Every structure is written in C-alpha cells, then in structure tokens.
C-alpha cells in the first residue's frame, strides 16, 4: 500500500508541491533519501579503510550522492517542517531563511560534484580529503537546519 505511494512520490518529485497534503509520506520519502545517501557515503568511507578500495563500489555510491544533490531541492515542500505534526528533525528555518538554506543546498551540490570528480580519479588520498570536505558541507547545513535529536 505504502510502497507504490512512495514510488509515485519519487517519480513525481518535481511536482511535489501538488502533493503537499500528504506531509507524512513526503517526510518519509525525504528521510529515506537522506538515509540512502548516508549509507552510500559510508560505503565509500568503508572502502577507504581497506588496503585496496574498490573503485566500482565508490563510483556506484558517489552516484547516489550526486543524484541526491539534484533531488534535494524537491524534498522540502512547504508544510513538511516541525509544524506538520509528523516527527522530523527539519527545522522551521528551512522555510523562513530560504536564501540561506538554498545557499547551503548549493554548497552541498557543488561539493558533491567535485567529490564525484575526485572519486573518478581513483586516488585514495585525494578521495579521503574530498570526503572530509563533503562531510563538512553536510555538517554545515545540519548545524543550521537540522534539529538535535532529543
């Protein structure tokens, strides 16, 4: 029942505002998307711990991250914040400081793009540095726009 709905939401992501009535489903989609990205980012970090990191795994995982850099813009429709009544760590500032939030999203998109190019280079030392920079972009936005877990 829920799965086709979520699938439909993913496909209809650019038209997300049209579906604003279903905040719970939208928040769930957002949560899963970020979790999938965390998983992908972790897979890269795990490879980097190995003596011989797998280029294939890292390339595949970085794709999830760059896809998310595009998708993120549609994941915060109005009405999916703390006032939605649904459990979310998204802060109200996302919708009140829109320019600042957009700048944080753009920063992540830029970092994801350059990280993808660094991963393509296959140089483990550079990928480690790149991962750190990308993580800082994540952290920067989380600090301002993601609530601390209670």
């Amino acid at each position, binding site marked *: 029942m829920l799965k086709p709905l979520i699938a439909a939401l993913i496909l209809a992501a650019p038209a997300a505002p049209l579906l604003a009535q279903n905040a719970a489903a939208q928040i769930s989609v957002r949560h899963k998307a970020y979790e999938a990205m965390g998983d992908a980012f*972790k897979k890269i970090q*795990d490879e980097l711990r190995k003596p011989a990191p797998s280029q294939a795994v890292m390339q595949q995982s970085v794709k999830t991250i760059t896809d998310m850099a595009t998708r993120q813009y549609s994941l915060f429709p109005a009405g999916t914040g703390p006032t939605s009544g649904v459990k979310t760590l998204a802060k109200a500032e996302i919708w009140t400081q829109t320019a600042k939030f957009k700048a944080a999203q753009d920063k992540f998109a830029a970092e994801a793009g350059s990280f993808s190019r660094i991963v393509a280079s296959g140089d483990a030392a550079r990928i480690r540095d790149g991962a750190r920079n990308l993580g800082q972009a994540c952290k920067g936005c989380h600090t301002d726009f993601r609530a601390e877990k209670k």
Partner: protein
Amino acid sequence: MSAKVVAVWDRPIRSFHWLLVVLIGFSWWTAETSRMDWHQYSGLAICFLLVFRILWGFVGSNTARFSHFVRGPAAILRHLGGHDSGRVGHNPLGALSVVALLLTLVIQVATGLFAVDVDGLESGPLSHYVSFQQGRQAAAIHDASFTVLQGLIVLHLAAIAFYLLVKRDNLVRPMVTGSRTVSGSSVAGMEPAPAWRFLLCVSVAALFVWYVAKGFPL
C-alpha cells in the same frame, strides 16, 4: 576494640579507578567540544582499562575479584540489616553499583566502536562492520547510555558522601593510599596477586585494543 591498618585495594585497582575518572571526564569534554580524534583515543584507552579490569576481576587480588563481591539478594539484605561481614572490599550493595558501572561502560565503549555520525565525518574503528543505520543506532545508544552512566556516577558520589558525612567513614582515602583502619583484629586485609598476572592482563588488554584500533581485521 583494637584498631589496625589493613590493605584494601591493590595498585592496579587504584590506578584503574583514577585513570577511569580522568578518561571519562576527558571523553565527555572531547565529545562536547567535537574533538573526535581525541575522543576516539580516549575511548580506546577506556576500552583497555575495561578489558584489564574484567580480567583482573577473575585473576587479580581478592578484593578485585567478582567472586569476592558479587553476591545474592540474601547477602544484600543481611548487609542492609546492619550485618558486618568482617572483611574489606566492596560490600554486597556497593557491588551492584560496581557491576552497573562496569556494564554501562562496556555498553558505552562497545557502541562507540560501531557508532557513525550523521555527517559521515566521524565513525568508530569497527563501524565498517555495520550499516549506516545500525551505526546511527549505535550512536543513539552511546548517547543514552552516557546519561545512564552520569546517573550512576552521581549515585556513586552520593554513596561516598553518605559514608563520609553520616557513617563517618572516608572511602576515598583507601582508594588513594590502598589501605584503611579497621576495628577488630579478626578483619583480614586484601590478598594481593603476583605481578606476572598483572603483566599478563595488561598485555592481553593492550593487544586486544591494538587489534580493535586497527579495525579488527578478520
């Protein structure tokens, strides 16, 4: 009644205790100030202390051994009823606190080893054995168990204050000097363990932590 001075805690136990005090404080501070490199070193050092303490609880001096102080409810009730066991070391009620503290610390260290932060910037040395979600769960437990640990430490300090102020018994001094005054000549002091056992326990603990720090390659 005659009073005499007897040994209570051996050097390994006292060193363990005070190093733990310093390292728990240091771990807390490094976590609060996001000094995660140092937090990880501190956690590994606590891991070393815990592995040592558990081993010492089986082969160490008699007051260090679990078999000496982990008692059943009957012994706890007798103690609460004012019965004096006539021996030094943890009393049956205090033993519960020791076990709770050690267990919480084991949970604290174990979850820290697998924890992953939400930004993917920091992760425990064994986090590659779990998924992102499991790593986040480990971090959540790490967070919650520290609150439990804080509560247990407050209880520990309250008990010490109670002994000092109400029972006029200073429990801190023996943990520093190793010995205390007892009334009654029948009270036996701590029986130490040979140094080679200490060296063996330290070596095993160090080896274990070194392997964990390397990511536990199988």
